[in-house]
């Protein structure tokens, strides 16, 4: 069980000098062996929540408790070693680091062809075509996004934080992506997403609006609620 207790996160607005709340007094629980999807308008604090869970941003106040242990003070490295795994919304590029090297860094050991095939075929890439390529600007946005997911799979862990994993992935591959999440069903999976198909796979949907969750429910019932809220961004995405 992963719990957020009264988490707040605020930044100072550089122009006005005023305090700006990104997250305000958020308390949430993520159960083991469940897929939770966080959705909501842009700027409602979803990605910040993911960064706070991974230890990239430190909350202004509040506690994060993982299996009964307060992990609020743990660094990114320590959380990664505890089983937290993140796939970033915008994958980072590295000059010179190959796909193979990145996968090996992720799983902490040398990988043979079979090992690399396992990670890359799960995201629809053929290992032979990719392992020697550098993770840099020569890869397309969609390829980078898939490799980002592949590194998360290679790393493994108990808590998966996936920030808009579908962004840049073509429609034709969407079902394969959903299969990746389904395979992670034994873990705690937290996905930030705007996509209907991903919301449908969720055990739990959390709707964020203005720095906090405003509604939490089971996938299907939340879906009904969301369709009645035309102001929400996901609807625009659907209509497009």
């Amino acid at each position, binding site marked *: 069980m992963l719990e957020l207790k009264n988490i707040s996160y605020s930044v100072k607005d550089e122009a006005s000098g005023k305090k700006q709340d990104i997250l305000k007094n958020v308390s949430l629980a993520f159960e083991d062996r469940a897929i939770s999807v966080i959705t909501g308008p842009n700027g409602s604090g979803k990605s910040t929540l993911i960064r706070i869970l*991974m230890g*990239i941003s430190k909350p202004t106040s509040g506690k994060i408790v993982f299996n009964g242990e307060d992990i609020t003070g743990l*660094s*990114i*490295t320590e959380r*990664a*070693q505890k089983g*937290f*795994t*993140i796939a*970033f919304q915008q*994958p*980072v590029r*590295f*000059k*010179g*680091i*190959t796909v193979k*090297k990145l996968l090996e*860094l*992720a799983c*902490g050991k040398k990988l043979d062809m079979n090992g690399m095939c396992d990670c890359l075929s799960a995201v629809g890439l053929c290992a032979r075509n990719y392992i020697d390529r550098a993770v840099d600007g020569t890869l397309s946005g969609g390829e980078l996004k898939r490799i980002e997911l592949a*590194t998360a799979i290679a*790393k493994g862990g108990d808590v998966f934080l996936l920030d808009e994993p579908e962004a840049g992935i073509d429609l034709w591959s969407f079902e394969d992506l959903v299969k990746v999440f389904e395979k992670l069903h034994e873990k705690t999976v937290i996905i930030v997403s705007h996509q209907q198909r991903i919301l449908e796979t969720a055990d739990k949907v959390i709707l964020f609006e203005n720095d906090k969750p405003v509604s939490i429910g089971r996938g299907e019932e939340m879906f009904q609620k969301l369709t009645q809220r035309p102001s929400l961004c996901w609807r625009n995405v659907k209509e497009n």
Partner: protein
Amino acid sequence: MDKMDRTDEQLLETIADLHGIPEGSFNIRKNGKLLARNSGTDVEIVSKTDKDGIDIIVKPGVKNKSVHIPVLLTVGDFQDTVYNDFFIGEDSDVTIVAGCGIHNDTCGNAEHDGVHTFYVGKNAKVRYVERHYADGSGTGKKVFDPVTKIYLKENAQFILESTQLGGVTYTERKTYATVGKNAQLLVKEKILTDGEEKAITDFKVKLSGKNSRADIVSRSVAKGNSLQQFKSDMVGKNECFGHVECDGIVLDGARIISTPKIDAVSPEASLVHEAAVGKIAGEQLLKLMSLGLSEQEAEDAVIKGFLN
């Protein structure tokens, strides 16, 4: 002739991937003297008579041959200048490995200056690998001031891979090239400096032939208080394409100065330069730390990949 000892063997392994005496044509120079040589019929190696150095003659049409000409310097208070000329026959395809290793345990300076001139014939292809490395416990400086001149005839291709990954107190590397019709020059340079080391690298490239090409990619990492300077001067005198890229990572109190110059003398010339110098991007470290690496391990992984 001197014998090879353990230090020599280690240096040879580092600079030329050699385990003992290589196959094919080779010339091993140690402390200003010839240590071993094999001159073949395809690739002939002849001592110069007017000055210190050798002529390396690759016969026309010779394919898939390698030549090793490593230099070792294991004493202090020694300055070794050598003039090597390479005559690469038409339609040949060769790899030349020319590293230099200095091991200086003394307080006197050890310096090796290799002046290499390549005359590359029509349709010939050369891969030239030059690795510079230095170690040793002495306070004496370890210096390399190489000069490489390259003349490429029609359709010739020259790949220069130069690497300096540590221990060199001071280096000033000069590379001059004249690229003929349909000929290509490809340069991959990698430099790592640390402590108080200083490295200067200076390219002057003339794209004189029609459809000539040059691609210079320099990657450097400067740590400690080290200083690196990258200069390039590319002139397009014909319909040609030239690209210069200088990427530098600075750490600690180090500094990298990049000065690329491009000059399209011919209106048909297309020349590009890119330069980026700065510290390691924070998001790269975050990504690697999120895979379980410590900050130091993440930094090392980025640098290792960058210098690949």
